[in-house]
C-alpha cells in the first residue's frame, strides 16, 4: 500500500473522529452516553493548549489521569517525525489539505509555483511568540488561532447550526423532532472567520497552516530535533522541481529542506520521478535547514507585543473594577482573572449546554473575553440540575463540579464547607414589571424559580386601580441570599426584549475568598 494512501486513511480517521466527538458533545447527544469521550481528547493532546495554560498558570490541568499531559504524545511525535501531526492527525489541517487539493491547478508548473517557500511563512513564529508572551502575563489568547480550539468553536457556533437549520427547512417534521436548533450570538462572525481561512486555500494552499498556525509553529520549532526527516540523494536529483507539485508544507524538498516547514506528508517521495527522495531515520545534518527562517529579533518583537498587549487590553478595568454586568459566567467557572488564564475559547461548553444559555461572548467580557462562555438568558436559563459544562472543559476554566456540589449538597473541594454556587443575582426592573408598573398579575418569575424556598416571593398588596376600584396584587421580590443567578426568571419573563428581571454577576460565589470581594453583594450569605 502506498504510504500516502495510508496517510489519507489516518487523516480521514482523525477528521471523522473529531467531527463525531464534536457532534456528540451536544447536550442532546450526551444522553446517549458518549460524553465520556468528548472532543476534549483532541484539546488534551494539543501541546499549544498545554504550553499556553502552563505559561499562564504554572500548571498542567488534569482531573484523574494525564489531562493536558497527553500533549506529551504529540510533543514526542514532533521529536521523532517533525510536524507529522499537521498532515496526519490535525483535523483542521486535513480540511485545508482537502480544499487545497480540490483547487489544485492543472499545469505542473502552476502547482509547483504555489508550493514554493514564501518568507511570509515565518509569520506564524511571530504569532506564537506573541501568544506565549501574553500568556505569561495571564492573558491566554491562543484559542483565537489554535487550530483545534478554532475548529471546534466554529463547528459548534456556525457549521453545525447552519447544517441543522438547512436540514430543518428541507426536511418535513413528521414525528422525528430533535427540539430546537441551538443558536449562538455572533455565530456569523465565527463562521465568516473559518470560511475565510477555508477560502484562503484557493490563493495559497494551506495558507492557515503555513502562515498563521501557532501550533504548527510550535511543532516546527521542535522539529529541528526530529530523528526522521526527508533526505535527498543529490546524485540522483536532476533539479526538475516536480517534488513541489503536491508539497503540503512548501518546504523545498528539492533544495535545502526547510525542516520546520515540512509536514511529513511524504507526497514528494511519490512525486519524484528519479527516486531521489526518502524519509529516513537519523539522516546527516547536511542538506537541511533545521531552524525556521525568521530572525530572532522578530520573535523577540512578537513576544514583546504579546507582553505589552496583555496589560493593554485590561487598561479599561473591565475584567476587574469595572466588571461587566453582562458577563455572567457558567457554574464552576473560576475567578475571572484565573478564568482568563485558562479558557481557550474552544466552545465545548457551548456545545454541551442543554439549554443553549451558554453563548460565546462578543465584547461583554472585554476584548480579552472574546468568545469565552457567558450566560445570555434570551436563549435559555442555567439548569440547576446540570453541571455538564464543567465536565467537558479541558483546561479547568470551568471546574468539574457534580450537580450535588453545585447545589451545595456536597463539598468542593473535598473536605471544604459545601457552598451553593451562585452565578449572580436577579434584580427587578420595576418600571418594566407587569405587577409593579402596570397593575397586571403575572409572577411567572416566582413560578419558575427552582430553589426551595423560592428566591422570588411575593406579598399581596392592596392597591387601587385607575378608576379607584380596589385591587389586590401579588408584588414579587428577590431574596438575594437564596438567588443562585440561574436566570430561569429572566428567561421566562413575558417582557421578552428587555426582561423586567435580569441577572447580573453581582454576588457570584466564584469571586468569594479572592481578597477584594469586588463582585460580592451581601456581607453574609
Amino acid at each position, binding site marked *: 500500500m502506498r504510504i500516502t494512501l495510508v496517510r489519507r486513511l489516518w487523516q480521514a480517521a482523525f477528521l471523522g473522529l473529531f467531527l463525531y466527538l464534536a457532534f456528540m458533545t451536544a*447536550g*442532546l447527544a450526551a*444522553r446517549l452516553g458518549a460524553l465520556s469521550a468528548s472532543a476534549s481528547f483532541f484539546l488534551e493532546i494539543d501541546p499549544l493548549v498545554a504550553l499556553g495554560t502552563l505559561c499562564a498558570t504554572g500548571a498542567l490541568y488534569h482531573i484523574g489521569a494525564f489531562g493536558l499531559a497527553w500533549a506529551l504524545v504529540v510533543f514526542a511525535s514532533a521529536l521523532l517525525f517533525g510536524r507529522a501531526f499537521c498532515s496526519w492527525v490535525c483535523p483542521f489541517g486535513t480540511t485545508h489539505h482537502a480544499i487545497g487539493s480540490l483547487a489544485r491547478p492543472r499545469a505542473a508548473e502552476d502547482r509547483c509555483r504555489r508550493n514554493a517557500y514564501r518568507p511570509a511563512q515565518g509569520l506564524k513564529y511571530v504569532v506564537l511568540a506573541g501568544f506565549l508572551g501574553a500568556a505569561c502575563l495571564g492573558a491566554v489568547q491562543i484559542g483565537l488561532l489554535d487550530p483545534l480550539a478554532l475548529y471546534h468553536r466554529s463547528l459548534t457556533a456556525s457549521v453545525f447550526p447552519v447544517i441543522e437549520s438547512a436540514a*430543518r427547512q428541507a426536511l*418535513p*417534521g413528521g*414525528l422525528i*423532532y*430533535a*427540539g*430546537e436548533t441551538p443558536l449562538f450570538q455572533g455565530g456569523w462572525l465565527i463562521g465568516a472567520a473559518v470560511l475565510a481561512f477555508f477560502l484562503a486555500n484557493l490563493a495559497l494552499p494551506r495558507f492557515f497552516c503555513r502562515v498563521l498556525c501557532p501550533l504548527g509553529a510550535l511543532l516546527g520549532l521542535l522539529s529541528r530535533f526530529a530523528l526522521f526527516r526527508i533526505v535527498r540523494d543529490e546524485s540522483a536529483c536532476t533539479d526538475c522541481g516536480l517534488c513541489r507539485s503536491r508539497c503540503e508544507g512548501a518546504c523545498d524538498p528539492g533544495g535545502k529542506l526547510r525542516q520546520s516547514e515540512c509536514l511529513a506528508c511524504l507526497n514528494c517521495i511519490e512525486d519524484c520521478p528519479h527516486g531521489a527522495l526518502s524519509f529516513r531515520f537519523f539522516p546527516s545534518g547536511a542538506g537541511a535547514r533545521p531552524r525556521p527562517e525568521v530572525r530572532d529579533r522578530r520573535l523577540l518583537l512578537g513576544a514583546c507585543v504579546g507582553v505589552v498587549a496583555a496589560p493593554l487590553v485590561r487598561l479599561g478595568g473591565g475584567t476587574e473594577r469595572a466588571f461587566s454586568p453582562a458577563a455572567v459566567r457558567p457554574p464552576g467557572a473560576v475567578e475571572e482573572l484565573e478564568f482568563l488564564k485558562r479558557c481557550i475559547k474552544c466552545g465545548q461548553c457551548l456545545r454541551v449546554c*442543554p*439549554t*443553549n444559555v451558554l453563548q460565546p461572548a462578543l465584547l461583554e467580557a472585554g476584548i480579552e473575553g472574546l468568545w469565552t462562555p457567558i450566560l445570555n438568558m434570551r436563549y*435559555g*436559563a442555567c*439548569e*440547576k*440540575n*446540570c453541571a455538564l459544562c464543567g465536565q467537558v472543559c479541558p483546561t479547568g476554566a470551568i471546574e468539574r463540579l457534580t450537580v450535588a456540589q453545585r447545589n451545595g449538597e456536597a463539598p468542593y473541594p473535598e473536605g471544604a464547607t459545601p457552598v451553593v454556587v451562585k452565578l449572580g443575582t436577579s434584580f427587578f426592573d420595576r418600571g418594566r414589571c*407587569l405587577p409593579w408598573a402596570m397593575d*397586571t*398579575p*403575572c*409572577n*411567572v418569575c*416566582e*413560578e*419558575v*424559580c*427552582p*430553589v*426551595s*424556598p*423560592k428566591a422570588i416571593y*411575593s406579598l399581596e398588596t392592596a392597591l387601587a386601580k385607575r378608576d379607584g376600584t380596589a385591587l389586590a396584587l*401579588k408584588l414579587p421580590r428577590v431574596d438575594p441570599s437564596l438567588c443562585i443567578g440561574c436566570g*430561569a426568571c429572566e428567561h*421566562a*419573563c*413575558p417582557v*421578552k426584549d428587555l426582561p423586567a428581571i435580569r441577572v447580573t454577576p453581582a454576588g457570584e460565589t466564584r469571586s468569594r475568598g479572592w481578597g477584594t470581594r469586588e463582585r460580592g453583594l451581601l456581607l453574609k450569605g
Partner: protein
Amino acid sequence: MEGGVARRREFLHRCAATAAAGAVGGGLAWWAYGRQRPPRPADPVSLAGLDARFPRPDLPGAPVLVVARDTAIADPRGGPVEAAVIERMLVRALEPLGTMARFVPRGGSVLIKPNAAFAADPLSGAIADPRTIAAVVKSALAAGAGEVLVADNPIAAPAFVFDRSGIAAAVAAAGGRVVLPDERGFAPVRIPGATTLPPWPAFTAVLARADAVIGIAPVKDHNLCGASLTMKNWYGLLGGNRSQFHQHIHEVICDLWRLMRPAAPLLILDGTRVLMRNGPTGGSAADVVVRNTLAVGTDPVAIDAFGVTLLGRDPRGVKYLVEAEAAGFGTLEFERRMREV
C-alpha cells in the same frame, strides 16, 4: 444589397431581444407589484373532530372518579414507589371505569400528556413519576393501542427534561415513544368557546394524530393559581409565549379544558407523592409528602378537587375550579361520584 439584408436581419434580431428582455423585466415587476404585503399568518386550525374518532362505549352508573390507595408502599424516607405497585393500583382504579380498554381504541394512536415541566428528580414531586407514566404506557399497549406517544412542551429545555427526569428511559422501556416539541410540530388552533385565549399555537403534530388522550399530572402546590393538577397540565400542549397566560391564569386554565374537552381524555392524578409547598418547582425533599394515592377519572373538576384535598386545602379556595364548575365542566362535590378501591 446583401449587406443591407444582413443589417436588416440583425436589426430585427436585436430589437426582438431587447423587447423580450423588456417584457421579462416588466412581467416580473407586474407579477411582484401585487405581492408587496408580507404573507398572512397561518389560519388557525380546528381540533374539532377529536371526539368523533373513537366513540367511547357508555357505562351507565360508572363513577367519574376512582381513588386507589396502597398502604403497602409507604416508604417513610420517601424513596421511589415500586413500579409493580403502581401498576397494581392503576389496574384496580381503572376497573370501575371499565378498564383501560374503554379508553383505548384498538390499533389506534394514544397520546399521553404527562407533566414534564422541569428537569427535576421525580422524587421532588414537581413532575409526573416516570414509573406511573410507564405503567400507563404498558396498560395502553396491553389494551390494544397501536402506538403510544408521550409528549409535553416543558418549561425547561425539552430534551434535557425528558432525559434528566428519567421519563425518556422509562417510556422507551415500556414500549412508548417520546415526541419532543419542535416549532414545526405546532400550529395555531382556535379554541371553541374560549373566553381568554386567542388562537394559540398547539402541539398539533401529536394532537391531530391522537385517537385517544390520557393526561397524567402530579399533585402540586402552585404559587399563582393555588394548585397544579390535571387541568393545569394541558398547558404543556401549547407553544408560543406562554408566560402571558399568568395574567389571567384561572380563565386560561378553563380555556385549556375547552380545548381538550372534545377529546374526552382519561385523567390520571399521580398522588404517590405530593408537593405541598414551593410549587410548582419544588426543589427540596422537605416540600414533599408521601400519600400513596392514585386517582383516575373523566371529570376534571372532581378529580382536581380531590387533588386539592391531598394538599390539605379546600377545593373551593381554588378559583379556576369554581369557575370550571360554573362553566359546567364538572362537579366540585366529588365525594358523591367517587369510588374508593
